[in-house]
């Protein structure tokens, strides 16, 4: 029986250092420590984490570690975190890997939220900028197109008083009572009673 090809992240890598130490609970191919170099290496699936997220997480580690990024031929990101002072223990390197992974997840999630809310952010920013520009000048008002409909009114409820109750001159000429006339007559009858 033929087994399906394993995903890239589970493939065995042949370029692990000879003295690579594994982290408990983490497959060697995903993360391992190199104690002679005081460094830890992670392999990240680019389908899960974008380069921007990797940049974001890396940037927060620049003050603590030497961070080096690379890309494998399979398209994975390889992150190397080396302690600034040599002689780091495996526990310290494990902390680096764990904290980096958490930060990476936070960056990836933030990126997704930002993308989802981009429209709202742009609208709010535009309103804030328009407000900061101050009231329009007379020239701006002169050029403004007031004939444009302010908003859609499919139910026809946004009518002006004149449109709704005003006398329809065209109908009056023809001698037909308009809707406005009926209502005016009803109002005068009420007053008389």
């Amino acid at each position, binding site marked *: 029986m033929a087994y399906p090809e394993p995903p890239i992240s589970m493939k065995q890598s042949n370029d692990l250092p000879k003295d690579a130490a594994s982290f408990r609970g983490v497959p060697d191919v995903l993360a391992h420590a190199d104690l002679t170099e005081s460094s830890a290496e992670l392999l990240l699936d680019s389908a899960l984490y974008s380069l921007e997220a990797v*940049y974001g997480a890396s940037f927060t580690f620049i003050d603590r570690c030497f961070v*080096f*990024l690379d*890309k494998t031929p399979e398209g994975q990101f390889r992150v190397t975190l080396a302690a600034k002072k*040599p002689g780091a223990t495996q526990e310290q390197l494990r902390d680096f890997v764990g904290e980096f992974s958490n930060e990476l997840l936070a960056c990836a999630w933030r990126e997704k939220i930002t993308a989802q809310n981009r429209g709202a952010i742009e609208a709010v920013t535009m309103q804030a900028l328009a407000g900061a520009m101050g009231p329009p000048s007379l020239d701006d008002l002169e050029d403004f197109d007031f004939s444009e409909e302010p908003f859609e009114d499919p139910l026809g409820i946004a009518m002006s008083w004149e449109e709704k109750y005003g006398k329809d001159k065209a109908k009056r000429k023809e001698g037909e009572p308009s809707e406005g006339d009926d209502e005016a007559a009803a109002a005068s009858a009420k007053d008389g009673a």
Partner: protein
Amino acid sequence: MRELRFHRDVYAGEQVDAALKLYERFGTLSTTEEGEHFVVRIESKNAARERRLAGELANYALGLTIRTRGAS
């Protein structure tokens, strides 16, 4: 001697050059291009110094790359 391989998709070439310019006075830095990578070979007085120089150079190039990508 140490070797750093900066992938073109990850590091901006101009920023790697800027980092090289800044750190060249701390050791001997030679550069070549191999496929997808800018390769930097670092030589200095001793292994510890080479390690630190390589780390600082990599951090600086990465920081500049991230900063310029954010600005663009």
